[in-house]
């Protein structure tokens, strides 16, 4: 109870401090607000907007380690060009965007960001038609903060940790120094799309994102190059697979070396899970055919569980959001779909396509179409359930962490940050605990629903 009291005091105190600071700095904050409005809307159209108060801008830059606007203008070469079709640079004074940050953090990336300007470099394998393969690692792009590369390698550049390609085929090969990437939001076919640009020798080049197989549904599609790299997700997946392999090797070995004895240590722990899957998931749902499906059920359970738990680790070896990636859950769901339907017996297909004891009209018009639709909806919901639960958890955690920056006005208000911190830490802690539950629950549900579908497909007739 005492800790709650202390905590409440802290909250009230920081709120008071915030209010006091807001009143104290009223004259300044007004000028700040004006400047913000300009910086977010017409950052480059009205570069003189904040000139009447140059002191203020410089003070900000010194106090908070952020370059003031005037500095940013002086640095960027070819700024006049940038105003006409080269997008705009990331505005250091722009309002903090929690949604964008969350989406960036749950997405895949080519390099793993550790801390500051440190990256864990991963191999890069790129293919562009008519150009051939480019094989290197992300270290070649010489990334600095925000995962933006400062060097283009064979026309490829690193933008926010992801590789993009210069659209111009005349772009020189080899290593070419490039500017900080800029972006612009354009509406194409009624959808908002962010186009990235990069400058080399004062010339502006448009960038292509990597090809995706989503057919444009998720905003991707085929572009000029394919990315076969070991990305952050692939790296995490391989790491977890290796870990699981090592773990189960030792468990399997223990059963041969300590044959007939009571299980011990990690063997004991794993046996609890394995017998749980067998006795609570496989046997009640599948019946006496269960042994055929046990390898898959155990594999999928431990794979999902391992990746869910690994995704909870907020720092380097973890942080890959693999089970929150639609492609990964789609492949898992497709495997379940294939096993279900390839093992389907006569009764399964009879009850799906032409069930007995129902009028033919009803069957042809309603039941069979619905059943066939259900055939595909089952793996579809399997895919979405895992993806949505894990992704939602990660977004909520990042949003709670973002509270610090929202209250702190992106690092400009120290007492505001303190309030954000007071709100953020317990909420994040709570969400982390909830996510731990969800990690186990989603692995269990995926396994159990797979077992239910296998049971449906192999059920014998009893009527």
């Amino acid at each position, binding site marked *: 109870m005492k800790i709650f009291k202390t905590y409440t005091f802290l909250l009230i105190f920081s709120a008071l401090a915030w209010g006091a600071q807001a009143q104290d700095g009223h004259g300044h904050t007004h000028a700040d607000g004006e400047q913000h409005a300009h910086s977010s809307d017409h950052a480059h159209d009205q570069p003189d907007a904040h000139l009447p108060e140059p002191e203020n801008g410089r003070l900000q830059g010194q106090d908070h380690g952020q370059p003031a606007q005037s500095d940013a203008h002086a640095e960027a070469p070819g700024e006049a060009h940038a105003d006409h079709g080269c997008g705009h640079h990331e505005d250091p004074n722009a309002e903090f965007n929690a949604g964008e940050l969350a989406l960036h953090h749950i997405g895949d990336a080519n390099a793993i960001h550790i801390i500051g300007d440190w990256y864990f470099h991963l191999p890069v394998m790129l293919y562009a038609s008519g150009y051939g393969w480019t094989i290197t690692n992300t270290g070649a792009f010489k990334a600095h903060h925000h995962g933006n590369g400062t060097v283009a390698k064979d026309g490829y550049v690193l933008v926010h940790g992801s590789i993009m390609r210069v659209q111009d085929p005349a772009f020189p090969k080899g290593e070419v120094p490039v500017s900080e990437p800029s972006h612009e939001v354009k509406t194409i076919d009624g959808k908002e799309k962010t186009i990235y640009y990069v400058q080399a020798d004062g010339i502006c080049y448009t960038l292509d994102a990597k090809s995706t197989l989503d057919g444009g549904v998720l905003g991707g599609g085929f572009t000029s190059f394919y990315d076969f790299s070991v990305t952050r997700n692939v790296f995490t997946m391989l790491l977890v697979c290796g870990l699981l392999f090592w773990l189960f090797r030792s468990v399997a070995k223990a059963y041969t070396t300590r044959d007939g004895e009571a299980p011990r240590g990690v063997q004991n722990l794993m046996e609890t899970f394995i017998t749980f899957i067998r006795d609570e998931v496989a046997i009640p749902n599948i019946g006496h055919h269960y042994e055929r499906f046990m390898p898959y059920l155990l594999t999928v359970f431990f794979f999902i569980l391992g990746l869910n738990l690994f995704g909870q680790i907020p720092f380097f070896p973890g942080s890959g959001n693999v089970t929150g990636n639609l492609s990964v859950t789609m492949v898992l769901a497709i495997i379940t779909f294939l096993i279900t339907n390839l093992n389907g017996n006569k009764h399964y297909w009879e009850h799906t396509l032409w069930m007995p004891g129902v009028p033919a009209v009803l069957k042809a018009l309603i039941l069979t179409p619905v059943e066939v639709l259900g055939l595909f*909806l089952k793996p579809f*919901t399997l895919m979405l*359930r895992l993806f*949505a639960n894990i992704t939602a958890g990660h977004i909520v955690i990042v949003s709670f962490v973002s509270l610090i920056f929202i209250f702190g006005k992106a690092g400009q208000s120290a007492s505001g940050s303190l309030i954000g911190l007071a709100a953020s830490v317990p909420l994040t802690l709570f969400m982390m605990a909830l996510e731990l539950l969800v990690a186990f629950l989603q692995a*269990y549900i995926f396994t*159990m*629903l797979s077992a*239910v579908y296998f049971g449906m497909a192999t059920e014998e007739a009893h009527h």
Partner: protein
Amino acid sequence: MELATIGAGLAAIGAGLGIGLIGSKAVEGIARQPEATGDIRGIVILTAALVEGAALVCMVLSFFV
């Protein structure tokens, strides 16, 4: 986009009602017959997953509209 978000919220209300009903009935069932707890738990998780599936489809549709 705003309308689609409202739709996602409505879907969440539906799923919430559904899962609430499942939970209340499960508790009633377990209170009446505590020895059937294990069976009821399995059925609850399965039905909740199915209800949630409908809500997820709505949520994803709201992203794409």
